[in-house]
């Protein structure tokens, strides 16, 4: 039993954090939101240069062969920066799904797509058949989609019908997509494999969304702490007031107790995925941990967002503060790919339906 990251894992995350600190600042986000800067100023290329798009790709396809436990800290860093590009969807979800398709012997363009995805030459997003909206399609060349969870199709973006939806996060606009008619599944004969692949994709999406929300929450606390230390009212910094201190301390408690859940969920997911193929059932406790991770991180990020806005007073409610980009990303991630409702219901089902055993010795799958 060990619950520490390796030095390599923490150093990679730190390096990514530093890179994003250079190329994904609040000012960069603002320029993108205001339309004064198009495209992302080569960020994707910078990320590709350090191999990130292929982080979870198999080494045989040129990837780094990392697991979910490795990627979770990287996803957290992209959250901290509110990275506009869909790196997490691509590297954290699409690439492993392509790799699983390739491993299942599927052709139909999969090996080529995997190779281009791993190198970052093509950006691939994932449109889960049960999700109505996805983000990041505008930067993508390809999308994994399906008319239902029994099917997996690989489409070029220009084949899809896209219905843009004005939405909360100005930097990751949502679209509803419709598949081209009569599109065949890459896995025509084996629905349970397709279902397993989608289940895995969803679990990865959730745990990495949770990781991003951890990063977002920490960033928002940091912004609020700086402001509260500088802004003076009634003759002293507002951060010297107990009310402000206690609000921010409460956020920090929520954040620090979401963190181990997210890390554990990623590690347990990695173990479960390695223990069985896509058709294998996921242990109920692992599924519950992933849902719990997303719930806990969403709660922490939501509280961080609301508290940081309150701490800023009126300026917190204005478009002029970069804080909004982090807050809106956090709320959007919470609403998508498993919202509170669905997750709560599912956890209750698992917990009260008896799928999960409770008690002090039932923390892990042992």
């Amino acid at each position, binding site marked *: 039993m060990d619950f520490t990251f390796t030095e390599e894992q923490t150093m990679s995350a730190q390096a990514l954090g530093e890179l994003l600190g250079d190329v994904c600042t609040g000012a960069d986000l603002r320029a993108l939101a205001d339309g004064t800067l198009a495209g992302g100023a080569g960020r994707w290329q910078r990320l590709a240069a350090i191999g990130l798009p292929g982080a979870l790709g198999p080494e045989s396809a040129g990837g780094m062969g990392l697991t979910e436990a490795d990627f979770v800290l990287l996803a957290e860093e992209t959250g901290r920066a509110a990275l506009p590009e869909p790196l997490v969807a691509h590297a954290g979800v699409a690439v492993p799904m392509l790799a699983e398709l390739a491993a299942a012997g599927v052709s139909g363009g999969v090996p080529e797509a995997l190779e281009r995805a791993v190198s970052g030459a093509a950006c691939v997003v994932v449109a889960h058949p049960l999700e109505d909206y996805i983000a990041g399609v505008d930067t993508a060349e390809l999308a994994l989609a399906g008319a239902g969870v029994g099917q997996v199709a690989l489409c070029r973006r220009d084949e899809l019908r896209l*219905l843009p939806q004005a939405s909360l996060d100005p930097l990751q606009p949502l679209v509803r997509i419709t598949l081209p008619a009569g599109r065949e599944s890459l896995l025509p004969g084996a629905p349970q494999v397709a279902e397993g692949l989608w289940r895995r994709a969803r679990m990865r999406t959730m745990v990495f969304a949770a990781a991003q929300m951890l990063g977002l929450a920490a960033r928002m606390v940091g912004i609020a702490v700086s402001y509260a230390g500088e802004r003076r009212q009634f003759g002293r910094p507002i951060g010297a007031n107990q009310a402000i201190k206690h609000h921010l301390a409460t956020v920090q408690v929520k954040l620090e107790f979401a963190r181990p859940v997210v890390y554990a969920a990623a590690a347990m997911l990695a173990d479960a995925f390695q223990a069985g193929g896509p058709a294998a059932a996921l242990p109920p406790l692992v599924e519950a941990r992933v849902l719990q991770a997303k719930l806990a991180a969403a709660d922490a990020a939501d509280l961080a967002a609301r508290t940081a806005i309150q701490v800023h007073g009126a300026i917190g409610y204005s478009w002029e503060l970069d804080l909004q980009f982090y807050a809106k990303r956090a709320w959007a991630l919470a609403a998508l790919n498993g919202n509170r409702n669905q997750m709560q219901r599912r956890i209750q089902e698992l917990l009260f339906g008896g799928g999960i055993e409770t008690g002090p010795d039932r923390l892990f799958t042992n």
Partner: protein
Amino acid sequence: MAIALHYTQAERALRAEARAWLAAHVPAVPLPSFDTRAGFDAHRAWERELHAGGWSMVTWPREYGGRGLNLVEWLVFEEEYHRADAPGRVNQNGLFLFGPTLMEYGTPGQKARFLPRLAAGDDIWAQAWSEPQAGSDLAALRTTAIQDGDEYVISGHKIWSSRAVYADWCFGLFRTDPASERHRGLSYIVVPLSAPGVRVRPIAQLDGEPGFAEIFFDEVHVPVANRIGAEGQGWEIAMATAGFERGLMLRSPARFQRTAARLVELYRRHAADCDPALASTVAQCWMDADAYALSTYMTAARLIAGGRIGVEASLNKVFWSELDLAMHRAAQSILGARAALMREAPDAADAGGWVEGFLFSLAGPIYAGANEIQRNIIAERLLGLPRGPA
């Protein structure tokens, strides 16, 4: 006086009259946001229509364009107004903050000059309280109004002025004694936003619309007659105004009851997809909106019987701002993935407006004096706890 929780014949008649008028006049399609040029003009037109119908400011005396209703009758009107989903009041700063102030502190001449135009929608008013270095700490204001003959010359910088982008006038606090400190030496002055030297810079809100603005004053000349009350009385007047703002009239309960009713509807439609816990949350919102209304009726009755509004204003502010946030958070939970869709999204349907409302509700605990300040007021003035370092 005695508790009698049923409407009189006259109150019922008023309700029927208001309902009929509103049914005939409320625009079928919601007006565009009053934070856009077109929306502002449409809302001004609506204010004029309300005024023509005699509904613009029902509690004011008839001489100023009102119909002399008491506070309970005002509540009845507000209930009908919100029940009809009638447009937001673009002139709310004027109607509910400046108007009552003027009624209490203005000279007869000032009242005659401003109130009828206000009621008619001819003048739309913005507030000019905050300054960049003085948020909830109003006593730290620095913008000066230096008397020069029969004029004040105003120089400085106001911020977070709602409606100021398109409004005609602003009212606010200015330092008329430049040597003064804190809450001494401030005066309450009104300024036409068209005056030379005034520059207005819109500030976008979280939803991207310019709901407030900065106002820069560069040696703006206004007649001394534009001062309300005595020189140096500004703080006292502003505190009274802040009482109105946090208090009874600016946030009539009907608005929250209408939101609660929409939330109940939303839940009923989506109950099958919801975490069952939401049933409790939604029911609590409905109860709290009604509790706020009951509290307002109780205060209204007390005021009619000769009482004055006190720390209730702070209690109200904390309660409604948290309720408003709770209702919008509940709606977001019910809506699931559609919670992220803005009103204009093709798939918005019954999600439309909730996310904008959620963003707006975040401002509730901040504006009109942050809730932290309100809690200090409740603790110190109502409960009598010792005044602390803050």
